[in-house]
């Protein structure tokens, strides 16, 4: 762990840094038990929840930092590390499992050269798993930035990743 939840933060500078969050905190401040919605909104804004941001929320909501850290690490939705441009969610549901999702996982980790939970060095892809995406009739399935792909074969999964990468690299090569 890079940070510790007890790390001291300069309240003044963290205020200006997290300016966009002010309205949200103001809206929920008086409402008891609203830590989770605040964390959800904060993640929507920043893409992930860095420790200084968690500490800022703790200060503003007058909740212990350790408590905020505890909640943020308890729930699967919250990410403390940044995600890549494309979030690849591999479904680990029962239907996908019996239809061979482990082979898709092997193909994806091989193609992206990262393990589940990691991001590629070029920050294009984050590979993660989901308990169930609920598209069981498309099993095995993966979701990339909200779009479902299935039924997959190992080769099909590799091809999808390659196509996205080619498209992205093409974009980067274009004159601005």
């Amino acid at each position, binding site marked *: 762990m890079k940070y510790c939840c007890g790390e001291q933060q300069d309240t003044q500078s963290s205020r200006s840094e997290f300016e966009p969050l002010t309205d949200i905190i103001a809206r929920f401040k008086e409402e008891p*038990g609203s830590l989770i919605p605040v964390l959800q909104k904060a993640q929507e804004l920043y893409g992930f929840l860095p420790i200084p941001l968690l500490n800022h929320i703790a200060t503003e909501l007058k909740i212990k930092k350790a408590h905020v850290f505890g909640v943020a690490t308890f729930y699967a939705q919250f990410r403390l590390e940044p995600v890549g441009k494309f979030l690849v969610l591999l479904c680990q549901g*029962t*239907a996908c499992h019996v239809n061979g999702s482990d082979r898709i996982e092997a193909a994806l980790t091989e193609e992206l050269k990262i393990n589940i939970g990691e991001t590629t060095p070029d920050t294009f892809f984050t590979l993660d798993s989901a*308990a169930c995406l609920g598209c069981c009739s498309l*099993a095995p399935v993966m979701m990339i930035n909200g779009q479902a792909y299935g039924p997959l074969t190992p080769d099909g999964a590799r091809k999808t990743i390659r196509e996205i990468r080619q498209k992205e690299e093409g974009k980067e090569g274009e004159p601005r």
Partner: protein
Amino acid sequence: MIIRVGLGSCGIAAGGNEIYNYLHKNIHDKQWSIDIEPTGCIGMCYLEPLIDVVLDHGVIYTYGNLNPEKALDIVEHHLLNQNPLQDYLVACSNEANQGLEGQVRVALQRCGIINPESIDDYIYSQGYLALEQVLSLTPEQVIVEIKNSGLSGRGGAGFPTWFKWEATREEKIPVKYVICNADEGDPGAFMDRSLLEGDPHTVLEGMTIAAYAIGAAEGIIYVRAEYPLAIKRLEIAIEQANNRGFLGTNILGSPFSFQIIIKQGAGAFVCGEETALIASLEGERGMPRLKPPFPSQKGYWGLPTNINNVETLANVPWIIRHGGESFAAMGTDKSKGTKVFALAGKIKRGGLIEVPMGISLRDIIYDIGGGIKEDKQFKAVQLGGPSGGCIPAALLDTVVDYESIKKTGAIMGSGGMIIMDESTCMVDIARYFLHFTQDESCGKCVPCRIGTKRMLEILENICAGKGTPGDLDRLETLAAGIKSSSLCGLGQSAPNPVLTTLKYFRPEYEAHLEDKKCPAHQCKALLTYFIDPKRCKGCTLCVKKCPAQCISGQVKEVHVIDQEKCIKCGNCLEVCPTKFNAVVVD
């Protein structure tokens, strides 16, 4: 003519939006007098994307496995030739019977038929009539009606709904809450999602009736953040209901007021448990606590709280409209009404179904589900997700009711039904579910936190060929301890997948342990791939595809796998042409 495009999550995943947009554009550009609207999931997920063509005289043609061009072709055919296009036709019938033979639709009555974003569609199909009716009854009369129906909690436990309502009603504290539990977490279960996406108003109506019966003024829907479409449609529905006076202050001119808010779960399976759900609503980590006091006594913020599952609430308006007796007339002696199931796995017609209690598993799997994919051998059906168990072929005639299912060692659960064939390894399935529960254990109590971990380690060893004698006994001892001493339902039921597979598929465990073989050829570490020299024609396909470069041989030479280097990925088996079938796995 009306075109309905199936835009539930499954329909969208299969490309429903592209069809909707393409048809919409064409209808607009060509100025056809056709209405096009979205609808929820009709349940035939295996045929997605689907469209319905509803003719003016009420006949409905359902088409499946479409793409935008095919869909346009169908619409043009209806418009120009006045007849259906046989090629992609799935069913043609009237509204009451849309290719859903064997099913009885109560909770799902409007799913896949109405536009879920239109309150008028809902009202037109008898929506909010039950609420109107309820407001002329006393809360006690409403509870009696629910009692007469025999409705029990559809989230899995099967606790009588009326009892919960009455217990909350009888609490003397005036501030009470109604919570709709939409934290559907079982992998392979999507009943609640489809309901919320396909007919959100019916859940709101059910909740409002519950609130009236118990005397609550505030309701919360706790829904998974992973269900964005369900959340969106719920938000639309709540706003519409508020605007029309079905929610808010003085509902339909009565003294009764009720409002509903949505809270999004943040991804924790344990939050399906009532007390964990409440902790999560209060901004805490979702950890369960001991019961009693039950939520009906001390729930949200310590106040009396009634928690019902989505499907339970969706049954309520129907029961009020048709009377409790009509609901009780369906089902068995002790399990009344219908149950929604999500059929998935190795089944031909996977999707969402609603059947009367008392139907046999065989009828569900073979008549409604169409049997096993590729006509393979049925091996087991998994009911109840991580809390449930696997029921073998010998018990296929078990009927679907709470008691009969429980006798097998599985549970009815929330409705996930995963079908498995001969290629599914039951030890691997037990390992899979234990991995899930171990991962999702909140860590509060020791038996669940450490016990599931130890069970998982044993199962992983068995699957890796490192099992030791006595492992099965150790599994059974651990299971008994975890079941009897865990704090909440998650831990108490976590050993079920292991216990049922041990009970019905013990020889398979023994094969892993003693012979170091996986009969279903799933556990990688126990497999050996080799090439039959008599069948190999030396085509080099497998040589080229082997990621470990462990297959030797030139063109027209018999290939050989170096067992030392083989990583057992199965690529060679996959690419070997079927006319040769030279790669053998054992």
